[in-house]
C-alpha cells in the first residue's frame, strides 16, 4: 500500500485529508457516523472571541453542483469552545485538531488565537481572513495585502503553533495576498474559501438567502480552486492546503499535483457524512492506478 503521510507545517499527519471548517462542526456530530481518528486532522468550526448567532435565515441555497451558505460564523465563542467543545471532542478524537479562528479586529483575532494556541489538542491555527459572510466595517481583512499582513503578523507574534492563513478567492490577485501573509510569517496558507455568490427566487423575486449573498462551494468551484492553488504554490515557499469542491480521491491527487501539501474537504461532508472517510479509503487504490507510491512525491508535480 502506498504511503499517505504528509508533513503539514512541521506536524506529520497520517493522510492529507482534512474536513474543512464550517462543514464538520466540532467533530462529534460525525463521530456518530464513524471513527473520526481516520482523518489526517480536521479544522473545527470558525471560532470568534464572542458567541455569535450569525446571519438571519434562510442562509442556505442550492446551486448546480454546489451550494451557497451565509451562516456568518455562528459559534459559541472561544471561552465556551475551550470549556465545552474541546473536552467533548477529546472523547472521540485523539489527534491534533486545526483550530479555525475568525474575528472583526486585530485584537479579536489575537485574543482568540492566543487562547486556542495554549490548548494541548490544537496542532495548527487556521486564521480565517476570508469569510465572505461577515464584514469589519465593510472591509474584509483578507481582501487587501495590508489587512492580511496586519492580522497574520499580529497573530504570529502572539502564538507558538503553526499559523495557516485561509485566503479568499474574491480578490483580483490571490498570489499577492499569499505573498503578504508569507512575509507576515505565516507557516502555511489554505485556499480557497468560498466564492461570493447569489441566487434569486423566481416566485418571490427576492434573493434566496436572507443576507442576499453568501459563499459558493461544492464541486462546481473545483477548477477555480485548482487554478488558484497552482498559482499560489508557484508564488510562495510555505505549504499550501488546497480546498474547494474536493469530493473524491482523484480530486485530492489533482489538487496535490497543482501544489497542495494537504487538502480540505468541505461541502462533500454535508451531502455524504462519510465523504472524508470514503476519500481516505479510496486513496490507496487510486494511488495504485496512477502509480503513486508516496503521496508527498506528487506535491506540485504538475508538468
Amino acid at each position, binding site marked *: 500500500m502506498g504511503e499517505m503521510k504528509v508533513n503539514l507545517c512541521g506536524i506529520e499527519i497520517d493522510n492529507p485529508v482534512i474536513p474543512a471548517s464550517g462543514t464538520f462542526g466540532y467533530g462529534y456530530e460525525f463521530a456518530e457516523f464513524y471513527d473520526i481518528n481516520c482523518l489526517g486532522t480536521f479544522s473545527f468550526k470558525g471560532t470568534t472571541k464572542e458567541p455569535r*448567532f450569525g446571519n438571519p435565515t434562510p442562509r442556505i441555497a442550492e446551486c*448546480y453542483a454546489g451550494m451557497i451558505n451565509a451562516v456568518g460564523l455562528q459559534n459559541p465563542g472561544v471561552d465556551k469552545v475551550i470549556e465545552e467543545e474541546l473536552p467533548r471532542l477529546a472523547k472521540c478524537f485523539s489527534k491534533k485538531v486545526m483550530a479555525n479562528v475568525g474575528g472583526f479586529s486585530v485584537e479579536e483575532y489575537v485574543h482568540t488565537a492566543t487562547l486556542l494556541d495554549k490548548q494541548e489538542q490544537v496542532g495548527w491555527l487556521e486564521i480565517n481572513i476570508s469569510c465572505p459572510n461577515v464584514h469589519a466595517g465593510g472591509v474584509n481583512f483578507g481582501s487587501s495585502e495590508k489587512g492580511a499582513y496586519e492580522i497574520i503578523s499580529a497573530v504570529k507574534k502572539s502564538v507558538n503553533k503553526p499559523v495557516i492563513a485561509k485566503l479568499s478567492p474574491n480578490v483580483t490577485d490571490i498570489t499577492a495576498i499569499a505573498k503578504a501573509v508569507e512575509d507576515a510569517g505565516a507557516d502555511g496558507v489554505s485556499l480557497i474559501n468560498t466564492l461570493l455568490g447569489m441566487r434569486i427566487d423566481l416566485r418571490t423575486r427576492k434573493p434566496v438567502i436572507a443576507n442576499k449573498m453568501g459563499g459558493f462551494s461544492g464541486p462546481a468551484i473545483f477548477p477555480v480552486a485548482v487554478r488558484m492553488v497552482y498559482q499560489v504554490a508557484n508564488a510562495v515557499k510555505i505549504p499550501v492546503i488546497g480546498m474547494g469542491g474536493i469530493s473524491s480521491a482523484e480530486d485530492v491527487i489533482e489538487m496535490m499535483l497543482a501544489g497542495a501539501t494537504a487538502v480540505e474537504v468541505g461541502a462533500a461532508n454535508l451531502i455524504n457524512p462519510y465523504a472524508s472517510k470514503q476519500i481516505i479509503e479510496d486513496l490507496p487504490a487510486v494511488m495504485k492506478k496512477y502509480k503513486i507510491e508516496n503521496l508527498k512525491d506528487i506535491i506540485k508535480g504538475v508538468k
Partner: protein
Amino acid sequence: MKQIIYEIIDTRQLTETVFEMKLRGDVSGIKCGQFVNLLIDGLYLRRPISVCDLNGDTLTLVYKVVGKGTQKMSEMKVGEKLDVLTQLGNGYDLSLSGKSPLLIGGGVGVPPMFLCAKRLIGGGKSVTVVLGFNTKEEIFYEEEFKKLGAKVIVTTVDGSYGVKGFVIDAMKDLEYTYFYTCGPEPMLKAVYNASKTSGQFSFEERMGCGFGACMGCSCKTLYGNKRICKDGPVLVKEEIIWEK
C-alpha cells in the same frame, strides 16, 4: 443517525400536488416527528422530508411538490433505490400528551401528525386531530386518521368542506390536555396564540446537511440557539421566539 438504502415499493398521488411514497428498508430507531434526508440524482443538497408512518420494514413519506427535488421524487418509480439519512431531528415527546391530546396539521404539515396519532392511540390516548387545508381538493389522509380511531375535524379556508376557516377556528371549542402541531409558520404562530395548553411545534427551515454540522438552519429560542435539524425540528411552546 443512519445511512440507509431504501427501495421504493409503492407511490400514490393523493391530490394534485401531494404524493405518497412507501420505502422498504431498515426503519429501526426512527421516532415520530423526526425526518429523513434524501439524496436525489442530479441535485446537490439532500431533501429533508418528515416521517409520516412506519409499518414493519416500511417507511411512508407524504410530500408536496414545491420545487425540483420534490418534482423528481414524484417521478420516481417502484423498484428505484434511494440513499437516505434517517433518525434525524429530535422528534415529538409523546410522554407529555396527557389523556386527550390534540393534533393540529396544516397542509403539508399533516403527514407527521399521522405517526403521532398512531402512537398516541396505541398508547391508549383519546386523540382529536384538526387537519387544515385551503380547499376540498387539497384534502388528504382524512380517512387514514379515522381508521386509526382518531376524532377528525377538517377545516377548509374556502369552506368547501368541513369547518370553514383556519385550524384555530376549529380549536376554539375543543378541550385537550396537550397539543402537537406541524404546518406553515403563520399557522404555527396562530396555534401558539390560540392554544390553551402547552404543546410542541415542528418547524421548517432550509438545511444544508440535516444532521447538525453546517449551522445553516439555526434559530433563536429562549433556551439558546438551536439547530432546527438537530436540536429541533420540534420546539416546545415555552421556548419559541417568533422572529418572522
